[in-house]
């Protein structure tokens, strides 16, 4: 993977607004943003209602994913272009989700909704009607998803990257500073994890930094990119962002997103925990 296959620019979006093979999908943390205005022709997925199972704490099943995409008129050969607010946090989570289920061509708008707004590009309120398809997903690709036992086994042997803010890593906060303080039962981080906040990878306008800059951020923090890596945050969205940087932009192999993240790990009985910077 590379920037050329994983990212599109706002100019590309403008040129492809009417392209019938492209479906734009907005995925936000604040799900009211889509109703306030979205890119022309874009549909939206709700990160909780559409992308969480609801009964079991898990991704939705293959069958539900197929139904979601079919209902929204996405076919197996559609180019899916994701974007969202908050520096594409939830859009990169959805990108990772599409990869889990083997979608062929999925991309992200570099800069996301923020850059689109900062450029004062048009947003519309009209919700498109798309003809249904019969989408067929692949079986889950768990080579990009880490589970708790694998994370515990990775302590001291693989790269573990904690992409939360320094205050969450050290154990002062349980969640980002602008959100209610909820999450794991306890605070802190997984021992031997390196704290490389997701935000280090983004420019002020929401676009990703250059590959050379990204590489030096991880290597400068002591991450050996030749080794396998697990990224985590609080609920798996910010770490999907960092997974995207490592796996899709830098082309590093064997990078997994631990979507259980601190909410799961910080609630496990008997596992080792570290605090402090």
């Amino acid at each position, binding site marked *: 993977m590379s920037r050329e296959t994983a990212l599109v620019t706002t100019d590309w979006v403008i040129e492809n607004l009417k392209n019938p093979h492209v479906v734009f999908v907005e995925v936000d943390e*604040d799900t009211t*943003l889509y109703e*306030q205005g979205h890119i022309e022709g874009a549909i939206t997925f709700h990160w909780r209602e559409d992308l969480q199972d609801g009964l079991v704490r898990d991704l939705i099943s293959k069958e539900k994913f197929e139904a979601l995409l079919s209902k929204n008129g996405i076919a197996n050969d559609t180019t899916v272009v994701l974007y969202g*607010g*908050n*520096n594409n946090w939830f859009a990169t989570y959805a990108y990772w989700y599409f990869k889990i289920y083997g979608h062929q061509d999925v991309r992200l708008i570099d800069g996301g909704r*923020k850059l689109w*707004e*900062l*450029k*004062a590009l048009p947003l519309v309120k009209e919700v498109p009607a798309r003809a249904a398809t019969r989408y067929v997903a692949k079986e889950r690709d768990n080579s990009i998803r880490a589970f708790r036992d694998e994370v515990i086994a990775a302590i001291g042997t693989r790269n573990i990257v904690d992409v939360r*803010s*320094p*205050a969450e890593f050290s154990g002062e906060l349980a969640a*980002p*500073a*602008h959100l209610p303080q909820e999450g794991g039962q306890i605070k802190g981080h997984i021992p031997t994890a390196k704290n490389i*906040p997701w*935000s*280090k990878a983004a420019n*002020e*306008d929401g676009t990703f930094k250059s590959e050379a800059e990204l590489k030096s951020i991880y290597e400068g923090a002591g991450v050996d990119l030749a080794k396998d890596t697990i990224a985590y945050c609080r609920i798996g969205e910010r770490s999907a962002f960092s997974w995207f940087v490592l796996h899709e932009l830098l082309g590093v192999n064997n990078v997994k997103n631990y979507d259980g993240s601190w909410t799961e790990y910080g609630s496990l009985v008997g596992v080792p925990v570290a605090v402090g910077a």
Partner: protein
Amino acid sequence: MKTCGATPGGPSLDGIDLTKQSVIQGVILRDGEADGVPNGAPVVNAHIRLLDSQGEFTAEVPTNTDGQFRFFAAPGAWTLVVLAPGVRKELSVKAAIGVPADLVIQI
């Protein structure tokens, strides 16, 4: 539109325990004679970044439909960076428990 409420800048502080929280909040208004609004129109598509005393990114929020924003920051010195179409503005602000930093920011 923002109405003439009790707070000069950010969202209502009702329900927030100011004995425990240190709040930075405000409203972003765009100067403009063309819109005919004396205090400027609320900017609904601004993004506010909160940087710590070392200049490190800490959090970011978009303005709401009234042009307002809020952070729960630790007490101390912070920098706000306001991003809006064609505008970038930095401000120094101090956060303290008990007295919210409530700002009216003209861009």
